[in-house]
């Protein structure tokens, strides 16, 4: 006979086996419902067991009850507002320290807490000896070992839930935060005590702690309270971030004192990944190591590709010769030789660089290092107005801006997302690489790799500074904090990296076969006509158009040919190079184009550097612009991106050329 209904909230960090436990308990009787007002999904399942009906509510995975994301708000609000009879926190036995952080917060609320020590088989295999009775005694909770994927310990967990539901709700477990913090908490508690209704709803100490941590969601709970002005006044003089950090430290201190008492070996267990992270995410070494690896990547991209480029160059040289020798029609020979072979060839030439770059990026990503890059950059990025998580889409921008802008969907906060979307095109995509390789190789010789590396770093710097500017002027407020699961390091798979390289490289080649061919044919037509004029001269249509645009770029030291190349680069950045190849009529021979550029008095090392900077920063390609429109849902942000990036490019190129003229004089 069914006696009563017990409402159980199932919570825990992501990836601890929570859903496996939920499924093991509820079987096929689960149903899915949506929370009102939020998009985050929850699952509700029913289980009849030992004369009880258990309503199991599976809450979104969360690392803490600090409400930064929608997931955390859902989990916390359910526990606070719905007051379930029992809260089951599923713990990953192999990572007790991190998991117990959430436990300390659940205990602060004063929940009837049952801890499910999941993956206990893995912990035992590692040699961990977890003293369950001691944890129960020290924390005042019930604890059960489970191996959910094998269905082990589930009945014991259900027994513990039923037993706990009939016990009194414990007093909130208190962590000592130190004299200064405790005084502030006490003061807040006194203020809050004047609102009885509020105090009946939320534990006073917990609410005081959250207010002192600057928790906006907790603050919103005071919106209709009479004590709000006094609370605001008290908090206004305090550095809440400092308090938040201090209290987080105290919770970890509490855990570090607890662990040696309850676990014989797990305290000293540090995985190989953790040890490597001590070095690669070191406060002082992290960024230099990151920059060093990036430099190595670009140096190799430049140097190792040269023999392959030489071979492609030879092939196109022979092709151009064959065309010139076998086609009588002058216009067709010009279309093929000066147009398609020169334009497309000058872009194809750099396919080895693109393939090597994508291969190396894939290796870094597969090894687990790129995820660390976001972590390393978080402190710097946060101070500049965006969160470290934004660095992942930005890093993806090294490949192509289009998927990178789409990847901003992973950012919860709308302002963070828009800022990241607008600054991601400053990260130098693969399409810009050919322009750098040609110009840096021509004008900076052995230093070309370092120059290219410098351009990539400049892209990052401009992106971060722009984010700071947007945060200060347009999207006022603070970026949201983030917690990120770092995947363990492992030896990268060469096979997977080759696959990634092939896929990305194929996309590049497809663009060559479509957009770039189209672009260079248009440029050839404009350079060839009207009939009778010298090909690509100032008297041709393209010359007239270029002359019209030249005043806009003249202060940068650019002439009409560069202006035309940049305009057509809007189709795709590789077209900048294709256009130069076509306009200089040098065929696909990289050496000839290099020689032509050196011979042109317009091109100096300073102008070449300025052109690279302009190409790096100016208006993203048409594909990226379209995706900004789609993702932001606004023409306004699309136009803003075009105008802002072009203005930044112009100013930066101007400064570069002027400084370059002094340095290289």
């Amino acid at each position, binding site marked *: 006979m069914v006696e009563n209904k017990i409402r159980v909230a199932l919570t825990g960090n992501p990836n601890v086996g929570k859903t496996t436990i939920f499924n093991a308990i509820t079987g096929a009787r689960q149903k899915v419902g949506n929370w009102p007002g939020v998009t985050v999904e929850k699952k509700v399942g029913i289980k009849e067991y030992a004369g009880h009906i258990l309503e199991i509510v599976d809450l979104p995975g969360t690392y803490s009850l600090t409400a930064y994301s929608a997931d955390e708000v859902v989990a916390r609000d359910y526990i606070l507002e719905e007051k379930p009879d029992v809260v089951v926190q599923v713990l990953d036995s192999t990572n007790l320290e991190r998991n117990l952080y959430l436990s300390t917060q659940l205990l602060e609320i004063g929940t009837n807490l049952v801890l499910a020590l999941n993956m206990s088989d893995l912990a035992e295999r590692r040699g961990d000896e977890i003293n369950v009775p001691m944890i129960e005694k020290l924390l005042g909770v019930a604890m059960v070992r489970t191996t959910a994927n094998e269905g082990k310990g589930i009945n014991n967990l259900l027994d513990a839930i039923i037993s706990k539901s009939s016990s009194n709700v414990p007093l909130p477990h208190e962590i000592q935060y130190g004299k200064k913090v405790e005084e502030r908490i006490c003061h807040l508690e006194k203020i809050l005590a004047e609102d009885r209704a509020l105090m009946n709803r939320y534990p006073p100490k917990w609410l005081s702690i959250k207010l002192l941590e600057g928790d906006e969601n907790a603050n919103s709970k005071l919106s209709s309270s009479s004590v709000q002005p006094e609370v605001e006044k008290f908090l206004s003089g305090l550095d809440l971030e400092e308090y938040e950090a201090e209290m987080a430290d105290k919770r970890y201190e509490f855990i570090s004192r607890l662990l040696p008492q309850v676990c014989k070996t797990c305290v000293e267990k540090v995985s190989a990944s953790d040890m*490597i992270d001590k*070095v690669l995410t070191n406060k002082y070494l992290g960024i230099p*190591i990151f920059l060093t690896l990036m430099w190595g990547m670009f140096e*190799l991209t430049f140097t190792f590709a040269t023999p392959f480029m*030489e071979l492609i160059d030879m092939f196109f040289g022979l092709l151009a010769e064959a065309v010139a020798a076998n086609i009588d029609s002058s216009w067709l020979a010009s279309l093929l030789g000066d147009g398609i072979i020169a334009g497309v060839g000058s872009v194809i030439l750099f396919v080895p660089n693109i393939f090597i770059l994508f291969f190396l990026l894939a290796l870094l990503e597969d090894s687990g290092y790129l995820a660390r890059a976001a972590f390393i950059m978080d402190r710097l990025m946060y101070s500049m107005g965006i969160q470290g998580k934004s660095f992942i889409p930005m890093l993806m921008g090294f490949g192509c801006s289009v998927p990178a802008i789409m990847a901003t969907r992973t950012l919860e906060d709308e302002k963070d997302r828009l800022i990241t979307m607008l600054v991601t095109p400053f990260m130098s995509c693969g399409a810009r690489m050919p322009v750098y390789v040609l110009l840096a190789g021509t004008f900076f010789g052995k*230093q070309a790799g370092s120059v290219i590396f410098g351009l990539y770093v400049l892209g990052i710097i401009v992106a971060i500074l722009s984010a700071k500017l947007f945060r200060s002027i347009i999207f006022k407020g603070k970026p949201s904090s983030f917690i990120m699961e770092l995947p363990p390091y492992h030896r990268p798979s060469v096979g997977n990296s080759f696959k990634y390289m092939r896929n990305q490289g194929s996309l590049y080649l497809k663009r060559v076969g479509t957009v770039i061919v189209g672009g260079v044919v248009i440029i050839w037509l404009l350079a060839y006509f009207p009939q009778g004029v010298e090909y690509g001269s100032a008297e041709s249509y393209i010359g007239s158009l270029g002359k019209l645009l030249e005043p806009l770029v003249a202060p940068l030291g650019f002439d009409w040919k560069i202006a035309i190349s940049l305009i057509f680069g809007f189709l795709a950045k590789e077209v900048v190079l294709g256009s130069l190849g076509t306009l200089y009529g040098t065929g696909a021979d990289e050496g000839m184009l290099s020689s032509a550029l050196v011979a042109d008095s317009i091109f100096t090392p300073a102008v070449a550097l300025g052109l690279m900077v302009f190409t790096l920063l100016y208006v993203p390609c048409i594909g990226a612009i379209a995706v900004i429109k789609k993702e932001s849902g606004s023409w306004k942000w699309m136009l803003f991106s075009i105008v802002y990036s072009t203005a930044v490019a112009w100013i930066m190129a101007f400064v570069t050329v002027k400084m370059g003229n002094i340095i290289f004089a």
Partner: protein
Amino acid sequence: MENKNKALTSFTLLWEIMYLAIGILQVLKGTKFLPDDFISAILFPPEFAGGLVLAVVGAVYLYGTIEFSKGSVEGRAYAYVGIILSMLFGVLYFLTFTADLINAWVLFAEGFEQWTPLVDFKPALYLGLISLAIYIGWEEEFRLRE
């Protein structure tokens, strides 16, 4: 365990000195604070960016030495990451050497007429290759245990 860490500590200290000294020397030559032929232009070429890379790797070993001197097991992590970085950059310079060799001796590419193997025989290459040999012979010493 003590003896093993002593051996690793000695290696870390030696490599720290080598990488930092050569790295700084290359940076000073690259920025023209020292003449190109100071000590040896072939063994220690003027190379600003390459010198910085060596200095960063040297700093990793330096941290390792400091951690070992405190008796911390974290020293092993620095030694491990240090030698991985040494080998990575050794491979990078070796690939550059190979590419230049193909350009010069197989393709007879323009700009490589004066190239000799000594041009690319840079500190990151020979230190990286020695590191690779040490790692292969001494892999167990570097292994990070849980």
